[in-house]
Structure formats: structure tokens, C-alpha cells
């Protein structure tokens, strides 16, 4: 598309933009010359997002995933995959934002899960999660319980898909955090808690760590390394 074919006003604007852009590899800068590197990371620490806009976006995400997923478990996998990169990045951001005295990387499973249970949940939902338990079945499984996940607030599940729990998105975030910290997980899934009348939407996040992680944990506990 050559410039001479465009109307004169547009071509002036285009030339102005070309002149303003610094010649470094064609990177374009906003007109105020401020890049993301100039923003302070703590600036948005206490800001909140409107629930309605999140719900709107989330509903769209679900229908986008649903179009491509033939089954319920596939849909949950897609939601999980969309939350995963979020977890990786949140890990660094949240640890960066903690006061310097206590800004430490978690190196033990319990410390990591405490971090997820309080700091991550507070950042995402404004309150800590409700329970953190070790599963009875195996030492590699941990459960985080949320009585009323925020993401499910405006989602109604039809009867034929009653297994679907859209908190699979949050499960993806948790998986990202755990994998990023070096505790590789086999899976993090969201399940409905059975038999709860007070909290009908109660969700349990089941976190399964890989055997290497448990082995390492055992070695560290022994005091050698």
C-alpha cells in the first residue's frame, strides 16, 4: 500500500509517525515515550478490577473453549491451559511485591502451598482460601478448598455437564505457580465437594505432585541435600 494513494491528511499523519519512531529495529513507542519498564510494579498493588468485567471476559473464554472442546474433560483442560501462564507470571510478581525482609522463594512444599493458600488467593479474590489439607490417599496429593469460588459466581452449569467445574481456570493458575516454583505437578484439578448444603458451590482443588518432588522433599527434610 503506497503512501501516494492515501488521502493527504492520512499520509501526513503516517509521515509524522515515521519521523517520531526511533530507528531501533522498528519498535514503536507510545507518544508519551513511556514503556512498560517505566511503570512501577507496586502501583497496581491495591487496585481492584470490577467483577462484572471479569465475569464478561470469563464467560466469553468458556464459550470460546467450548466451541473447540468435544467433551467436558477437554473443556476443563482448555480452561486449565489458559490459566497456566498466568500462574507462572504471578509467582514472580507476588514474590517481588512482598516486603524485602520476607521476599523469599518457597523451597518446601508446605511453604509453597501456604503461599498459594494465602498470598495468591488474597491477590486474586481478596480473601485467603478456606482450607489446606493433605489427602488421605497418598502423600503426594494436597487439597485446597474454596467455599465459593469467585469465578463460578455467574456460571450456571446445565444438567448434562454437571461434572464441569469452571474453577479449572483457577486450577490452571495454581498449576502455573507450582510448576514455576520448581515443584512439578502431575495435575491440578477442580472438583465439586459432595454433600455440602451450606456451601453448594464448594470446590476442592486437588494438587498432585510428581514423585521426584516428594523424593526431594524427603531428602531435604533429612537435613542433607
Amino acid at each position: 500500500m503506497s503512501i501516494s494513494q492515501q488521502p493527504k491528511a492520512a499520509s501526513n499523519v503516517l509521515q509524522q509517525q515515521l519521523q517520531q519512531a526511533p530507528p531501533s529495529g522498528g519498535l514503536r513507542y507510545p507518544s508519551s515515550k513511556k514503556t512498560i519498564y517505566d511503570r512501577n510494579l507496586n502501583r497496581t498493588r491495591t487496585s481492584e478490577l470490577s467483577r462484572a468485567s471479569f465475569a464478561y471476559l470469563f464467560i466469553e473464554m468458556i464459550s470460546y473453549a467450548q466451541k473447540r472442546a468435544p467433551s467436558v474433560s477437554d473443556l476443563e483442560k482448555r480452561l486449565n491451559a489458559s490459566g497456566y501462564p498466568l500462574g507462572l507470571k504471578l509467582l514472580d510478581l507476588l514474590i517481588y511485591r512482598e516486603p524485602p525482609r520476607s521476599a523469599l522463594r518457597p523451597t518446601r512444599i508446605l511453604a509453597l502451598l501456604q503461599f498459594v493458600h494465602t498470598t495468591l488467593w488474597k491477590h486474586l479474590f481478596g480473601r485467603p482460601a478456606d482450607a489446606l489439607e493433605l489427602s488421605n490417599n497418598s502423600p503426594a496429593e494436597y487439597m485446597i478448598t474454596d467455599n465459593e469460588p469467585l469465578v463460578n459466581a455467574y456460571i450456571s452449569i446445565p444438567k448434562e455437564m454437571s461434572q464441569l467445574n469452571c474453577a479449572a481456570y483457577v486450577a490452571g493458575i495454581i498449576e502455573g505457580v507450582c510448576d514455576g516454583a520448581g515443584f512439578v505437578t502431575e495435575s491440578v484439578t477442580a472438583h465439586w465437594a459432595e454433600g455440602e448444603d451450606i456451601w453448594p458451590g464448594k470446590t476442592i482443588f486437588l494438587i498432585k505432585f510428581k514423585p521426584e518432588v516428594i523424593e526431594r522433599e524427603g531428602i531435604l527434610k533429612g537435613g542433607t541435600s
Partner: protein
Amino acid sequence: MSYYFAIIGTKDNPLFEHEFGTSKQGGDGIARFRDEARHMNQFIVHSSLDIVEEVQWGSGQMYVRPFPPSQKPPSLHYPPVHAGAVHTQYLKTIDRYHNNHISCYLTAGNVKFLLLLSPDTHPAAYTASSNTQRPSSAALARQTSSSLAANPTAPQTEEAIRLFFTEVYDAWVKNLMNPFYLLNAPVRSPVFRGRVMAAGKKYL
């Protein structure tokens, strides 16, 4: 005094590299590595990754004392790990290779920042320098005695390196916040490079 800075991702892939020289005391900010030795920098830095990985789970302290590679691994020297303790991220000089010291900073996402310090000799002449010789003349000694190169294990050097790493970490987290940046992808932003250069000029 030349520096080679590299960012290594979680799969041991390099994401970013930068060479620069000291801007203090007559240094002009340009790295002076021998041409043959330049590619060695990558090897040296990557070989210290093993040590990082060994220490990252065991270390209970922020700073790791420098040790010659022939000694026992450092984790056995340090205070025992308490159950449930969380460990901090900056490991001091962790390795030495013929007078080149390597320091490491470990981010929360297990991305490693590695800095190789290589002392120059003949700063007056600024000709090709050997990495293993010791400066011999008196003028050299006077000039280099207060520079970072002469005392790579001094607290001022380590403080300077720690501040440098903190600034780069700041730029790194901002880079991560870019929703289009996928983890373990190479960093190509010229703004990021500019930030690293500025931090290098300021502290090293």
C-alpha cells in the same frame, strides 16, 4: 574489569546475554575480553549452573561464600535447613574459574541471572589482556587496588553486584508482565537491554 551477564531460563536455555566493562575509574564501559576467551564465557557460565542447582534447594542463606571448585560442595557447610523454612534468592559468588568469579541471582520462577566477573590486567594500556595473569607494575596495583576487580570477594563488590541484580530483576518482572511474553522465550526488547546497560553503568 569486564562483565558477562546472562539470563538462563528454566530449561537451561539462554534468554539474554550482555557484555560490558566497568564504567568506574577510567573504564570506558566496553568489555575487554580476549577474542579467544570470549566464547569461553558462555561455557564457564553454563558450567556453574550445576552448582546453582545444587545450592538452590539446600542453601539457607542469601549469600554463598566463594569456593574453589576443588572443595566440597557448599551446601554441606551452611547452617542446616529448618523444616518449612523459605530461602532467599540471591546467591553470592558461587564459583571461580581462573580468577573469573561467577555470581548468581535466582528468581522466584527459577530463572537464573549469572554474572561473570573477569579482572583485566594492563588497564593503562588497554591492550589484549590475559585472564590469568596478575597485574605487576606499581601504577597498575594502585589503580586496580580500589577497583572491583582486585577484591572480588569484598563486601562492596558483593553489595554492588546485589544492587545490580535487584535492578535487573525489576526490569525482568516488568518484562514478564507483558502478556505476550511466554516464559523461556528469548528477550529481544531493546528497552530491556537499555535497562540492563544502565544498571551496569550505575553499579559496576
